[in-house]
């Protein structure tokens, strides 16, 4: 459920061995597509982030684990900030690269 102000959160990291951007999915798995990311309320995001950090570092899976804000636009979820949109898709100046290229 969204928080009272409607803001949702997703949790992201870079995969240790190759640096690829990953997102935490429902159930605790890490996925490469933002579309598969778990969308969490603020209350849900805090403990989920702490657990994800501990797991990612403990398993040598990911680095730079953090949560970011997500909004719904035209029925679809998208990161609020440009930085996170670019991470989720790829460089805006090279549409042939990054996750957007595989979409």
């Amino acid at each position, binding site marked *: 459920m969204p928080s009272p102000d409607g803001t949702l959160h997703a949790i992201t990291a*870079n995969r*240790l*061995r*190759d*640096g*690829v*951007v990953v997102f935490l999915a429902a159930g605790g798995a890490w996925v490469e597509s933002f579309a598969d990311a778990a969308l969490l309320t603020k209350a849900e995001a805090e403990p989920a982030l702490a657990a994800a950090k501990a797991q990612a*570092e403990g398993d*040598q899976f990911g*680095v*730079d684990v953090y949560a970011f804000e997500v909004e719904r636009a035209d029925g679809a979820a998208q990161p*609020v*900030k*440009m*930085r996170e949109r*670019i*991470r989720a898709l*790829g*460089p*805006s*100046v*090279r549409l042939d*690269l*990054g996750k957007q290229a595989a979409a």
Partner: protein
Amino acid sequence: MNHIAPGARAGIYHYDAIDRRFVGERVEQFRKQVDRRLAGELTEEEFKPIRLMNGLYLQLHAYMLRIAVPYGVMSAVQLRKLAEIGRTYDKGYGHFTTRQNLQYNWIKLEDTPAILNALADVDMHALQTSGNCVRNVTTDQFVGAAKDEVVDGRVYAEILRQWTTLHPEFTYLPRKFKIAISGAASDRAAVRVHDVGLLARRNEAGEAGFTFYVGGGLGRSPFIGKLVREWVAEEDFVAYLEAILRVYNQYGRRDNIYKARIKILVHELGLEKFKAEVEEEFARLRGPKYRLDPAIVAEIRTHFAPPPFEDLPETSDALARAKAENPAFANWVAVNVAEHKAPGYAIATISLKPPGGIPGDATCDQMDLIADLAERYSFGELRVSHVQNIVLAHVKQDELFALWQQLDAAGLGTANAGLIGDIIACPGLDYCALANARSIPLAQALSARFADPVRQRTIGELGIKISGCINACGHHHVGAIGILGVDKKGTEFYQITVGGDPTLTTAIGDILGPSLTEEETVDAIEAIVEVYLAHRTEGERFLDTLARVGHGPFKERIYAAD
């Protein structure tokens, strides 16, 4: 191993056994460190400074590996290796930076030792491209070729490379430390916006020496380097620089990253006190141990001996004919070709700024082509400029037309060196984890807006420099027109500065007014250009007109409606 043989080629430093063993050992050391990180024996906190010491950053989409191109000079063989690495381990391209280096944007940690090993095969590495050390020393991209050159900066840049790489006092400086050297009458290396800027000169006896500027830099607190010593003799070159670094190491702040650069130390200590400290240290160091032995200088100079130039007339009839028959080629020569010290030769700049392109990016196919052309026309050697272009420094005037035809066919024949389309732009928010706003789309929009070569030449010398954050990797502070990307509540805005100058008449640009959206910024730059053209008198550059008429007419035009 595919090492660069001296002799028939232009000047490239060729490794000796010690260099080769050292670089090889560092690769093996890093391989083991990566293994330990992947096995969980090193935490990220422990590993991060280690990977940074090997040029490996974590950026938005992946790891970024920054390869050192010492003083921006490399061989065709080395460039081909960079192309091969880009194809094998990255996504078929690389980005040439304002530090005369090359960055790959899509690197895997697990591949990095193999990449460093491949680099070592051609005497290259990624050392001193990150971390709080003396970074890769930069110099004039026309070094060893320019008609106005007095002293060859490569010799001293190489001495500094050897002196700093393993120096125990300089591995954990308060912050990164950037040195630039210029040995020509014109400063093409932006020396006064470096931690140490060196002007290599000659005295009346013809001896080489150096003028030292200290405490320049861009970033969130821009400063112009201050004159610390007018003349340091060649034999004292290392001792004096070591004295500066010792004072910095002792007094530089380590408690606040934003106040840790030497520019802040010079500012807070005061120039006279700083100079006194350096002179005291210099007096202690000066002596046989720190004397730069002329024999060492002479030995290193042999690596940079001039290539075997042919005995040619000063000018070329073939060039004159080709220019007369082909206006586009004539335009490229007028804009991208500079005078060479050897009769019959010329310096050709290959612009990596096609209209609408990404400044500094080159595909691996383009790198291969440039390597081939360097072999064919420039003694197998090329340079990366701090304005993110490539230079073939020793081209016969007779062969410029053939060179241009092949460049043009590959999309590398853009004639805009030093003009408004020759934009410096950092990777910005499209790649960089520190950025607040995108730089590249704005550069693309501006170079497309000003694509017309006739209009560009009408406008004349006018450098636009764009940074995506206050760290100023795009040198916006010293752009005749500078643009800084800022984030305002999640929206990208751009702050325009005018009047910056990276040459010996160094100046930091002034903010013109409130920041604008991307679209407004492109229109505002066009308005600035129109105001300049309306006000300029015969022969005035943009900076001259701005100095004469002030900011008023420009502000009026852009912000009058507000």
